[in-house]
């Protein structure tokens, strides 16, 4: 039987898909595996339970410290998707309960599906009117559109949800300005900061937002755990009912080992944020310059690279290769052990043209010609060299393979 390229004995891969998931940091693996061997439900009253509870609460404090929030504002979830769902449905429903006129939810056309899909669902079941606000050609929310939409009828706005930074093209959103526009009307703001934590400086209290989603596996922690940071004053209707473990907002036995690994990863990611951003940003800039030099008609999608971390995630390089099908190019690079993404949502593995690129004004054709390279804490200069070496032959191959 032929060797599976994804067996453990395979050649080392050049992993340039950190925005999908990034390797766990060894410290988080250590902490997590240590706690996996311990018994104790944090909700139990006996000594083992108390010990587990202590681990969870210390983790909560660690995360709160790192993110600039109070420990009681950290609600653990199963990950980013649950955090986003809890935020947009839970806050909307509580706001609507308080005042039935609050029907409108404002968001951007470039949110992750974990925000867009629950909102679409709310609209379909008749619980909300959802407005997708436009972005400019670099993928940044048009603030004037937000302002106009709110001012049309502020009392009818239930919630504004704007991501901190986009997962596909890496554009940093003007969250501070969004808060400045929404707050005077008493409208809460949720932000999906899943791509931002550990790569950009994020301080929850200073941001003025009311709720913020994060997930562990994008910052060096384990899969299957995340959190919604939500201001104590904000009421959230529960989505998952049961033991009421997390502030009565979220039920389910608390995953002590995962939370411990999560906290270790957050602490490290935030502590090392500036260094990681500088390291990753320098490699990213090198990657973009050299790929653009090697493939003259390739171009960068999204916001400018400089100044580092201001307009764009430091690890994001989203490139268009005219005449090349992105999925052909991805497959050719994969065959050479170089892993990246078309950056688009997949259902059944079927690539759809990216809603983000379409919202930025790309045609379907342009959207299909794109690849996302995302760098992270384990990326090396050798990874960039390998991509630069492979990109020209792969582009040449992918060109005649363009779907006629």
């Amino acid at each position, binding site marked *: 039987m032929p060797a599976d390229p994804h067996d453990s004995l395979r050649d080392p891969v050049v992993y340039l898909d950190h925005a999908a998931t990034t390797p766990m940091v060894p410290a988080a693996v250590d902490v997590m595996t240590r706690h996996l061997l311990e018994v104790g439900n944090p909700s139990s009253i006996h000594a083992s339970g108390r010990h587990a509870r202590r681990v969870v609460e210390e983790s909560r404090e660690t995360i709160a410290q790192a993110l600039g929030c109070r420990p009681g504002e950290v609600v653990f979830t199963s990950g980013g998707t649950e955090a986003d769902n809890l935020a947009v449905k839970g806050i909307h429903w509580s706001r609507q309960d308080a005042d039935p006129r609050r029907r409108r939810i404002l968001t951007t056309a470039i949110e992750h599906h974990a925000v867009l899909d629950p909102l679409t669902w709310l609209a379909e079941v008749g619980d909300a009117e959802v407005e997708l606000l436009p972005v400019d050609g670099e993928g940044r929310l048009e603030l004037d559109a937000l302002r106009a939409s709110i001012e049309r009828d502020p009392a009818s706005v239930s919630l504004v949800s704007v991501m901190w930074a986009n997962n596909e093209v890496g554009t940093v959103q003007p969250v501070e300005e969004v808060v400045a526009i929404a707050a005077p009307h008493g409208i809460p703001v949720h932000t999906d900061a899943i791509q931002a934590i550990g790569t950009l400086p994020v301080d929850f209290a200073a941001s003025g937002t009311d709720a913020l989603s994060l997930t562990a596996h994008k910052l060096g922690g384990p899969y299957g755990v995340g959190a919604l940071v939500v201001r104590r004053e904000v009421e959230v209707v529960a989505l998952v009912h049961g033991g009421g473990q997390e502030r009565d907002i979220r039920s389910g036995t608390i995953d002590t080992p995962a939370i411990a690994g999560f906290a270790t990863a957050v602490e490290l990611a935030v502590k090392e944020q500036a260094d990681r951003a500088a390291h990753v940003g320098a490699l990213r800039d090198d990657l973009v310059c050299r790929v653009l030099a090697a493939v003259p008609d390739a171009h960068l999608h999204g916001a400018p690279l400089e100044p580092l971390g201001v307009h764009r995630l430091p690890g994001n390089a989203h490139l268009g290769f005219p005449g090349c099908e992105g999925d052909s190019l991805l497959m050719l690079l994969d065959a050479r052990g170089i892993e990246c993404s078309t950056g688009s949502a997949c259902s*059944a593995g079927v690539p759809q043209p990216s809603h983000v690129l379409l919202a930025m004004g790309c045609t379907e054709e342009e959207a299909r010609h794109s690849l996302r390279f995302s760098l992270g804490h384990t990326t090396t200069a050798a990874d960039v060299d390998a991509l630069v070496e492979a990109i020209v032959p792969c582009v040449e191959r992918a060109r005649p393979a363009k779907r006629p």
Partner: protein
Amino acid sequence: MKVLAAMSGGVDSAVAAARAAEAGHDVTGIHLALSRNPASYRSGARGCCTIEDANDARRAADVIGIPFYVWDLSDRFHADVVEDFMDEYAAGRTPNPCLRCNEKIKFAAVLDRALGLGFDAVATGHYAQLREGPDGLVEMHRAVDDGKDQSYVLGVLDQEQLRHSLFPLGGSTKAEVRAEAAERGLRVADKPDSHDICFVADGDNAGWLREKLGDRAPNRAGPILDEDGAEVGRHEGTFAYTIGQRRGLRLGRPAPDGKPRFVLDIEPVAGTVTVGPRERLAVHGLRGERPRWCGAPPARLRGTVQLRAHGAEHPAVVTVEGEQVDVELLEPAYGIAPGQAAVVYDGTRVVGSATITSTRREP
């Protein structure tokens, strides 16, 4: 060789991919997403483009140990196969979408893209045999398993396409393939065969056509006539009828001789269906266009023709003049519908095919 294995999620294509890999080829698996709305789990009738099928194909690729991707060809498939299927019915013909898909999608769009990407061949789970002929050309022959032979739906492939094709199952029976799948630990070993048209989810072709044709002419009610032009019944749309059909005619008046009547002719524009006795269905010759030859076109050949999938072989003399193919049937054939392919065989070897445009009822 670098081989691209098209994997539908069924047992045949999974074993074909496994055999290609075992033969030492560098195999990559792909699943073709052909439906514009893949978010449908289908029960009962089986096709080849549900989410479940994509997952089955992915799991088979994992077990075989080959990389796997999904290629979205839904736009091409819709334009070249689905719309063609509707147009053919609208024109009163009976198309075979599987042939069309092989000609336009699997061994054209997919093959072109594969060759462009540096692959040497496309492997599929079709039951047909390829071998080198005396002149160095690749010949296609019927499969060993008569019941599964799919050379008919491959009769549209030309030499260039055949040179880049692999059919690893042609020498095996379906029972052997299922047993091998189980031995290899492929979970799809006992998955039912697909029989229906893959894009008609519930297998109800007439219902599907009724919806898609909208108010186009073949979907309008009209008379069912006998051979003298007398109205003997009504129909809800000509598209639902096929030449040679006997069932479901619901004729008001019995034939004078009391014998069953069959659909003899369909006129979609006039909106009429003509019925008559079985002997009037006998076809003694037919004409085909759009020929596709596996090698050099023959000028005149005495061989056999197959006129529908899993249909009988009819001894025939085939004469070719450019794009025109004349078939003289040595014994009459029944229920032959324009739009179907006439695939020409010389013994077990596929010579080529043409799309039937007209039939001749006079001996």
